[in-house]
């Protein structure tokens, strides 16, 4: 059992600099939780507080019900993988992985047991042939695996990973991401993973904790944070290319709702409309959030269409990323190549040409203009974005 509970955890540095504001989270046993956010948002700090490498200024952290605030790292039953691998340069890969095992005193592990554990972990990670080499003779990806292996052999209940893939090149990162997913199935531990890359968060996590400036912006499964972002920051952070944000009005017309971006008139879909009605939302100025993949080409004559001038068009292969401009606002649209005619494709690829776009009424997000909080959010205490 390895349940981690953070209750009202705060980290305050000297000079009253608050790195982490009240952090509440309940990590279930064997769950894979990802802390994600931009640099300086407090995710690494929180991880290190769980590990015991940083003092906890306020609040408590409990592991399996026991308060561990004052326990040194070695007594918390955790294993950690560092961003810079932290491999001992003068030891071979084998000895690096065996390091923690040799430190155990009661009972002391025999060489045979150590050998078995290390070689088993090495086989899983595919680094058996490097066991006699020293870290300097390994590539980045191999060193990364050794770092993971070193944490694995301890067979701890809690695995902490601090941006383990940040130092790898893009291709390797994709590869290692898949391997971590496979690894997770083989190891029966609770994972707490820190990254700044939302792709990693989305693909690896059972639940994602999005942080900014020391505050938790939202906690939820990948689908939840993608489909129902609580505020504009989360909406813009998750999903690439970034969601488009347009200032416009939400108009209530008896039982229906409309939005009017760029002088068009788009009907809000009935399911969303019911939600709005149940919350008694009136006509107001909002910021409309629409993901690039939810914008479609429309015909010039339609009332729900608006004109857009093409600035740049990126040919991604199976789709086009069109960067356009409407009335001074930048817009990004993702258009699958398969859905357009060669004529349209030609037009899109020409800079300066005008195209007509519309949104489907189904997938739109409405954010309060001042607080930037999603009008339809079910959560309380959503942080305000400035």
């Amino acid at each position, binding site marked *: 059992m390895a349940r981690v509970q953070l209750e009202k955890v705060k980290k305050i540095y000297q000079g009253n600099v608050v790195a982490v504001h009240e952090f509440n989270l309940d990590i279930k046993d064997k769950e894979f939780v990802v802390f994600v956010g931009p640099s300086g948002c407090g995710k690494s700090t929180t991880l290190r507080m769980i590990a015991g490498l940083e003092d906890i200024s306020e609040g408590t952290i409990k592991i*399996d019900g*026991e*308060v561990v605030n*004052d*326990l*040194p790292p*070695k*007594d*918390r*039953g955790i294993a950690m993988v560092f961003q810079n691998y932290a491999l001992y340069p003068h030891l071979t890969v084998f000895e690096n992985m065996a390091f923690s*095992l040799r430190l*155990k005193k009661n*009972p002391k*592990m025999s060489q045979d047991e150590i050998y078995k554990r290390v070689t088993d972990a090495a086989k899983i990670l595919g680094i058996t042939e490097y066991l006699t080499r020293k870290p300097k003779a390994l590539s980045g990806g191999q060193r990364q695996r050794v770092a993971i292996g070193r944490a694995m052999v*301890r*067979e*701890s*209940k809690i695995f902490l990973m601090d941006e383990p893939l940040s130092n790898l090149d893009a291709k390797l990162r994709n590869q290692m991401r898949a391997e971590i997913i496979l690894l997770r199935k083989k190891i029966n531990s609770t994972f707490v993973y820190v990254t700044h890359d939302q792709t990693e968060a989305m693909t690896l996590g059972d639940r994602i904790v999005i942080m900014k400036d020391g505050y938790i912006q939202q906690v939820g499964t990948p689908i939840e944070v993608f489909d129902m972002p609580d505020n504009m920051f989360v909406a813009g952070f998750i999903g690439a290319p970034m969601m488009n944000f347009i200032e416009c009005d939400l108009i209530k017309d008896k039982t229906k709702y409309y939005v009017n971006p760029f002088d068009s008139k788009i009907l809000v879909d009935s399911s969303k409309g019911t939600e709005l009605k149940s919350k008694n939302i009136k006509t107001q100025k909002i910021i409309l959030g629409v993901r690039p993949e939810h914008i479609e080409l429309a015909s010039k004559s339609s009332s729900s269409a608006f004109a857009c001038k093409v600035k740049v068009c990126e040919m991604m292969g199976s789709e086009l990323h069109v960067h356009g401009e409407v009335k001074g606002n930048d817009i990004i649209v993702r258009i699958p190549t398969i859905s357009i005619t060669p004529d349209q494709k030609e037009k899109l690829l020409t800079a300066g040409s005008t195209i007509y776009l519309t949104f489907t009424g189904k997938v739109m997000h409405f954010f309060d203009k001042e607080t930037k909080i999603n009008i339809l959010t079910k959560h309380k205490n959503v942080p305000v974005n400035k």
Partner: protein
Amino acid sequence: MRKVEKKVDQYDVYRPHKASIKKRRLAGNIAAYTGLILISAVWLIPLVFLIFASFGVNADGTGGAGVPSTIFPEHWGVASYVVLFTDSQVPFMRWFLNTFIMALATAILSSAMTIMMSYVLSRFRFKGRRFMMNFMLVLGMFPGFLTTIVLYYVLKMLGLTQNGAIGGLILVYCASSGMGYYISKGYFDTIPKSLDEAAYVDGATKFQVFYKIMLPLAKPILIYTVLTAFMAPWGDFVFARYISFGYSDSYNVAVGLWSLLQQDKIANYFTVFCAGGVLVSLPVTILFICLQRYYVSGVTGGAVKG
């Protein structure tokens, strides 16, 4: 009551701890501070005693007493300092001036030669380079004093000993200073070669690269080299003693003050020695503290890249 969990798995145990982290850290800090205060005291004590002794005078108030038995001198006064400037047997001003001149000359000449050698060895690859470096390494394994014996006679023939000792010593200090290139070379090695290459592409000659780009970039190590070269003559005993021996007017401060401790003089001049020591240490120490960071970076940077 906190309950301690029994074995979670055979090897990853929550061990009950003795004292909380905070208490242990506090105890550790107290011990550390105590240790540091003790160490500082022990290190400064001899210097403090030196200062005390320098204020010792004879019972009759004149300067120049013998080796003290107690921390505080039996009789106090500044007379010992006065002796330094008045006693004709103790031409302290002369010694100070000699050392200063030598230090200045050495600082300039010696640094120049060291920098020239280390720059070339760092930047250029020419046919005899490895051989030169190994040869100098081997040369350095001979005790330096050996050369003095020969040099003394040569300098004597040129008239650069005894009363010409200052010139002779400057020559001895500076001539072979090319051999001390290690630290400066280590520093030059850390300046990326791409800077040189960019300059060559722009049309500079190697000479221009040297004085327009490299020297300004090497300011920290230049200051370190000049500083150590300047400070060397103040502390040199062996060479100065050998080359200027017997001719009191040519002594540097080290030999001069040492001569005050000889059998015939020590009973009457020990406190004068202390006074002289204090007067010599002051400017050197102040200079050192001001330029401390250059010295530190030179020692830590170059000394260990080896």
